[in-house]
């Protein structure tokens, strides 16, 4: 159920757009209305979620310190894993976001002959990194469809991505990487018993969706060519708010675009929000300086305490007998 439901949901989405475009000719809906709507949902949704997180304060200073603190001047502080100032936090966050620092620590803990042993486990880190970076590069590459003159930086990325110089059109390395990475991320959810046990439909759905997007993209580029000039025309129309539907682009493109739209619209309601969330994680984005600078809790409120006076009242005789000084005789 956890796997089949999201799988068939993605199949259903593909069939839906196929039927909608090929049979009902709903080009306007799938080419213009849904992409716009998805983008609006994405932008408003992400903003709403981030603001919702932001509306809850950070009452306590709770960084997870992963290295030596700043204390005595002759003890070398780990300024990145245990930052005491903003610069350190920026570097720590950059490493987290760009190279998945914490995930890089990953280990495999096993019990062998009555011993707990720790093995190397970098596959998840590698697959995660490969997936996210190739996704980003592919996304950036696609910006060529939205600009009249393709900016040099995008051309540079394209040429790096295709440096193998094989195939016509040139083969992009990221196309293969993303397919392999996403497939791995899916199979580990099925094959590792613990990961299978914790996985939800919400974990499989985005994987299938992204796989669908990648496969339809690859098919379009290398196998079943679509009318590329028309695609650019449609994209330029969308971005300049003068949308139009060019003739004869091909249904594969609409499938691709619809799945992307679904991904965008689904994004704010899903775990994919970890993209924004990672920046707001208080165990990572705070400097470990709570002894140096007082952290303010906006809802700090007075509490009922047992005062020294009450304590002395309880024990005055015993205290005097033991020779302890008292406030009241």
């Amino acid at each position, binding site marked *: 159920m956890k796997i089949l439901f999201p799988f068939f949901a993605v199949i259903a989405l593909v069939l839906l757009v196929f039927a909608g475009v090929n049979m009902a000719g709903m080009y306007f809906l799938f080419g213009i209305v849904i992409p716009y709507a998805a983008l609006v949902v994405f932008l408003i949704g992400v903003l709403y979620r981030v603001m919702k997180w932001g509306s*809850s304060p950070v009452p306590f200073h*709770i960084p997870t310190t992963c290295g030596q603190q700043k204390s*005595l001047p002759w003890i070398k502080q780990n300024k990145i894993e245990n930052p005491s100032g903003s610069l350190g936090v920026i570097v720590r966050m950059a490493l987290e976001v760009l190279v998945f620092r914490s995930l890089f620590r990953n280990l495999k803990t096993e019990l062998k002959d009555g011993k707990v042993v720790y093995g190397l486990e970098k596959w998840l880190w590698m697959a995660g990194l490969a997936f996210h970076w190739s996704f980003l590069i592919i996304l950036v590459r696609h910006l060529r469809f939205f600009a009249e003159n393709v900016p040099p930086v995008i051309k540079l990325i394209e040429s790096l991505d295709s440096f193998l110089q094989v195939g016509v059109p040139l083969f992009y390395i990221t196309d293969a990487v993303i397919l392999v990475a996403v497939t791995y991320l899916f199979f580990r959810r099925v094959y590792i018993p613990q990961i299978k046990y914790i996985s*939800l439909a919400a974990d499989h759905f985005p994987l299938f969706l992204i796989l669908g997007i990648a496969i339809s993209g690859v098919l379009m580029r290398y196998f079943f060519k679509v009318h590329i000039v028309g695609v650019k025309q449609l994209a330029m129309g969308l971005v300049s708010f003068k949308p139009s539907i060019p003739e004869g682009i091909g249904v594969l493109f609409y499938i691709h675009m619809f799945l992307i739209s679904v991904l965008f619209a689904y994004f704010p309601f899903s*775990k994919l929000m970890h993209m924004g969330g990672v920046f707001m994680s208080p165990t990572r984005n705070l400097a470990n300086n709570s002894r140096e600078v007082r*952290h303010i809790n906006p809802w700090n409120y007075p509490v009922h305490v047992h005062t020294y006076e009450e*304590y*002395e009242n309880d*024990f005055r005789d015993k205290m005097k007998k033991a020779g302890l000084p008292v406030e009241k005789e």
Partner: protein
Amino acid sequence: MAKLEKPEELIKIDYTPHKKDWMDTPVEFKEGMYCWGAKGKDLKILDFPNARDWSPKEEDWKLPENWKDTILEAMADRLSKYRSFRLFMDICVRCGACADKCHFFIGGGDPKNMPVLRAELMRSVYRKYHTTGGKIFGKTAGARELTLDVLKEWWYYFYQCTECRRCSVFCPYGIDTAEITMMGREFMNLLGLNTGWISGPVANCYMKGNHLGLEPHAIMNSIEGMIDDIETITGIRINPSFNRKGAEILFVTPSGDLFADPGTFTCMGYLMLFHELGIDYTWSTYASEGGNFGFFTSNETAKRLNSKIYAEAKRLGVKWIIGGECGHMWRVLSQYMDTWNGPADFLEVPKSPITGTVFDNAKSMKMVHVAEFTADLIKHGKIKLNPGRNDNLKVTYHDSCNTARGMGLLEEPRYIINNVCNHFYEMPDNTIREQTFCCGSGTGLNASENMDLRMRGGLPRANAVKHVRDQHGVNMLANICAIDRATLSASMDYWVPGVKVTGVHELVANALIMKGEKDRETDLRGEPLPGKEGKE
């Protein structure tokens, strides 16, 4: 109580998850895996809700009529008060990197002890009441109703987390299970679902100033006994002061150090060091607890207990505070105290009267860890040490979860140990510093009725000790935590017999050459010093 299995039986651990979905697998209360319920009288002392005697074993938990609303209201409230809570409910992708990082999962194999799934126990309820997907798709979206069974499952598993934060080191988003189980415990506190082992000490601490419930004269008696022992060993009579106004420094340490071996030896270490330095300091019987079991019930309770430290510092008119060796005590002090009960503007920035070092890193909260204080002394050559007196010991060092991951106090204790001992060996890298393993009994789980849980949770740490014992002949496990001193002793006896447990300042005191001391024959434990064997 269920009899604890032998180590060779206990270590046969099955990590295969159940066939059925975890939501369809109801919680099963296993003897030895949980603590007994709270006593009504303790809850009453603290004005806790639903004060009554109760037992988790009974079918009827004697809950208030509207228990469900209470929790759901509290959940909505805390979501709006804690960004950590709201964020960590939302952003987990269930990558599973945390799964095999938890000592309870490693030692027990129960899938609901994978940090991700322990958190999902809470998230599933959050989704049902706070997300669109959860409201519409229910179970398919990983959402479920809050029912009595769910509540019992929460109780069972949120008291199988020591909030050690090891999982948060490995999480790519820094999701901290402690933030989730702390919230879970806070909710259950609203229903009076406390454990006896936590609420008893909390009530004691509230009324008497310390977890053990030592009254003022009992604290003095306890220290008096240590002073006699110190005199026997060193020939020096120490005369500490209590509740003395006008002292320069207030010293606060966990009350565990006053009560039982080997904590008392650590306490003797403080007494000897401070005497030798001649610093102007005082103990307090009112603020006689550094630890804070309130932290394991609710944020408010923790603040109530913690308030005594600053209040007493103010009343006595001291300039700053030194804190003893303790783990969760320092998480609370370093990440919470100043926020709750500060600003401590009536105190001065801590400055060592011996070396003149100003502790700028504690500029605002005004409290220095005794390991920072002592490391500074040694660096400046202000104490005379004979590490040879610890030559019978082969020492390894256990980082407390909280000082490692909630502070980063890693090098100070190592520097001290290396100066007071000649034989120091580190455990494997994946088990120390920020990757250190919990003793298995933190957050108030150090009771006696849950030994099965404790020994399972203690397995990874014990296993690493075993490694250095077999490789280097390590026979002493040093640490800077009062809970560790008590609980690691038990887990060493169980898993690695022959390895003893010590506080770092016990090692310091053994090596410390005091002015006018006699030729010492024994260490603080009354055992012959190296080279003095058979001279009785």
